[in-house]
């Protein structure tokens, strides 16, 4: 993977190289292996390259031999060898071994219809010089990012927002509605971002820019079907996962794996170890706090798949130490610290010479792995007989890892779920989470409360649901909501792409091969959640791939310490500085007096619940985010531009 950026002018005024230079430099971490640029009167394209396929020949921006097309591209087309054969049979010749060139010829041959043929994770922009247009594309599930801003008919785009700001032509301002979505969903919902005037291209969407106008089209739709499980379904899953992992091992550099210790990543690593020509390198996070730690399971799987395993040990001080860097890369406030350990994990992988890793992300959404799915089923079951004294006890089985206090407060605990929302609400499955997260808003300052007044993020989400949504089952609706509110804008971005690319590591996600999604989406609910047993068919599949202890392991959600990370030991000075009342007042988003109460409880160890932990992380990360993006100039970089290429000056 790589990073790209660019500018398109409505009038042919050109793009000065210095602008492209600043934009590319801002995202140099995404592509430390090379920088390139091209400009003409209309368009400027810049690219920071992470060399993975065709190390010698894949430099970008890349044009076709006729000079009619140019592309900047971030990602991988895993079926590019097949497409290359097909295009070669149609008379195209190839100068390189890269998938980038395949994209160019595929566009020339099939136009926008090329997208349906792509298997991969990608964001790219193709400049069509004949039409003086740009074609912007983001993959089906939003694995890779693409941001844009429009200013007077000019278009600015890039893999990260900081590239847009580095142009010096896109103003920096926060979007109260975007922030309010962060404090509802954990992330702003595309196309919205926390920055006013900056949008994210929605997953599965493409856009055409021409004559200063941008038009959008959804090219891939998340769809669910209901039917019986076909007799050959399990074998189909075996074949699909074999193919998906094999395709994602395609690289001219070694491919490693992230190993959480859970079923999903373990099975992927097992297949990767089986199919790799060299010994597989695996990487895990281990926590000093045993309530978060899964290292015993990780070690067992590493031994079972015979990988060469490395562990990143995480103590609370580590999270606080890297958190400012984490926010610089996520480009959004957070409500959890969970990305921080992954930032350190990608650093470890890179230090060990690995720049491509496979991850288990996506399986929980496709195969109903999260507790949220069970929770929705139990809530629905209880609400059918609201007076039943026994049915609500099912909630006690859902969250054993939150046992601290939860068992003693059972009556209240259960009531929280029962009161969380009506089954008639299309957002039913997610209302407990949205409600819990929204407690952060109690800390809003009066001014910020006024700024978001009238904005209804839940209402907008309800209005944006596809027509088919109402015909789906409760679990299918939950899966859809999980994918559009959390998977793409938070898990694949803040925890995924951003943390990996901070150190120039590409994360590949075999479960989000669209063929695997379409297979899972066509399964009956019962094949995914049987009773309260999650990922039913995936477990049957994994039983042939993993030792029984790993294949049958109950899911443990990935979490990281929050309050202790910033209040135990000697936290870095920024914690006190940014939580200081004058700093909060300057930030303007949170009420200093309200935050003071929270800080007092954090300091005294009283803030032990999820909602206060989320509030602390939200306030602190928002302060860091404001400091990073509204007070710090984007680095200018020591680069110079020569003959269409950037050259490092040092």
């Amino acid at each position, binding site marked *: 993977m790589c990073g790209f950026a660019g500018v398109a002018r409505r009038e042919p005024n050109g793009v000065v190289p210095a602008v492209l230079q600043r934009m590319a430099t801002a995202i140099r971490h995404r592509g430390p292996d090379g920088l390139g640029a091209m400009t003409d009167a209309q368009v400027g394209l810049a690219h920071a390259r992470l060399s993975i396929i065709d190390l010698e020949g894949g430099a970008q921006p890349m044009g076709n031999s006729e000079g009619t097309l140019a592309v900047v591209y971030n990602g991988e087309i895993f079926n590019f060898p097949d497409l290359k054969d097909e295009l070669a049979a149609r008379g195209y010749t190839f100068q390189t071994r890269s998938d980038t060139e395949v994209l160019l010829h595929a566009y020339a041959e099939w136009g926008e219809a090329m997208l349906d043929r792509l298997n991969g994770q990608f964001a790219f922009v193709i400049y069509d010089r004949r039409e003086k247009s740009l074609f912007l594309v983001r993959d089906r599930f939003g694995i890779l990012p693409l941001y844009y801003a429009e200013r007077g008919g000019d278009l600015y785009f890039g893999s990260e927002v900081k590239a847009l700001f580095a142009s010096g032509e896109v103003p920096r301002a926060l979007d109260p509605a975007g922030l309010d979505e962060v404090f509802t969903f954990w992330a702003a919902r595309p196309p919205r971002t926390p920055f006013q005037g900056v949008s994210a291209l929605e997953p599965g969407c493409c856009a055409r820019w021409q004559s200063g106008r941008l038009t959008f089209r959804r090219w891939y739709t998340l769809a669910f079907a209901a039917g019986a499980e076909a007799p050959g379904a399990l074998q189909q899953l075996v074949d699909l996962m074999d193919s998906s992992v094999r395709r994602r091992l395609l690289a001219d550099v070694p491919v490693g794996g992230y190993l959480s210790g859970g079923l999903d990543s373990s099975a992927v690593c097992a297949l990767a170890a089986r199919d790799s020509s060299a010994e597989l390198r695996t990487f895990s996070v281990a926590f000093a706090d045993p309530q978060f730690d899964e290292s015993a399971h990780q070690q067992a799987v590493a031994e079972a798949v015979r990988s060469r395993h490395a562990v990143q040990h995480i103590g609370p001080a580590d999270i606080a130490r890297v958190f400012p860097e984490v926010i610089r890369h996520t480009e959004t406030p957070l409500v959890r610290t969970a990305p921080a350990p992954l930032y350190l994990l990608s650093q470890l992988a890179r230090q060990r010479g690995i720049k491509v890793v496979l991850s288990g992300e996506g399986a929980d959404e496709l195969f109903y792995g999260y507790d949220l799915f069970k929770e929705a089923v139990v809530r629905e079951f209880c609400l059918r007989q609201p007076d039943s004294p026994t049915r609500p006890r099912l909630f006690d089985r859902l969250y054993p890892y939150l046992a*601290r*206090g*939860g*068992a*003693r*407060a*059972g*009556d*209240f*605990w259960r*009531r*929280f779920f029962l*009161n969380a929302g009506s089954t008639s609400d299309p957002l039913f499955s997610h209302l407990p989470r949205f*409600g*819990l997260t929204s*407690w952060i*808003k*109690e*800390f809003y300052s009066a001014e910020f*409360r006024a700024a978001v*007044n009238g904005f209804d993020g839940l209402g907008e989400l309800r209005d944006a649901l596809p027509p088919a949504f109402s015909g789906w089952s409760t679990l299918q609706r939950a899966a859809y909501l999980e994918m559009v509110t959390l998977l793409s804008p938070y898990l694949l971005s803040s925890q995924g792409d951003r943390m990996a690319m901070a150190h120039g590591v590409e994360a590949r996600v075999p479960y989000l091969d669209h063929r695997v999604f379409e297979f899972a989406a066509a399964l009956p609910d019962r094949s995914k959640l049987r009773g309260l047993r999650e990922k039913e068919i995936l477990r049957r599949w994994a039983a042939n791939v993993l030792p029984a202890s790993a294949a049958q392991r109950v899911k443990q959600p990935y979490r990281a310490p929050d309050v202790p990370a910033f209040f135990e030991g000697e936290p870095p000075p920024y914690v006190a500085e940014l939580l200081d009342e004058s700093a909060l007042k300057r930030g303007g988003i949170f*009420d200093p*007096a*309200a*935050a*003071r*109460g*929270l800080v*007092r*409880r954090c300091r005294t160890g*009283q803030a*032990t*619940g*999820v*909602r206060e932990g989320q509030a602390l992380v939200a306030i602190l990360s928002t302060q860091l985010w404001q400091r990073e993006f509204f007070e710090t100039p984007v680095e200018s970089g020591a680069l110079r531009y020569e003959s269409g290429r950037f050259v490092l000056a040092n």
Partner: protein
Amino acid sequence: MSQAGSYSPTEIVDRTRTWVRENFLYMRPDWKFGDDDPLLGSGVIDSIGVIELVEFLQSAFHVKVADDEIVEQNLGTLNAIGCFVNGKVPGNGTMPAGVPVDGVGKNTAGAGMLLRPRA
């Protein structure tokens, strides 16, 4: 001032109200919070907070709260707490759980309005 082991329902409610405000409503000091307003349903206290509440009651009023007593009937509102704790304090007469005590705080805000956005 009460002697240790002897607290009136009014005193229990007053001290609990102060504690709830300091620990769960610190971010919204202007909230109107009535003695019959639900502590959980309104979102004032979450399930982890209930454990803190129980620890506070045990330590402040020298009572033991059994697991099966941690129910909304006993701890759902300030008045319910006043009644429940008063009935457990040694030397106090036992009172039926969940029955409001006359003269102890009046409901000044409608149930369920505490988490609604300000106008």
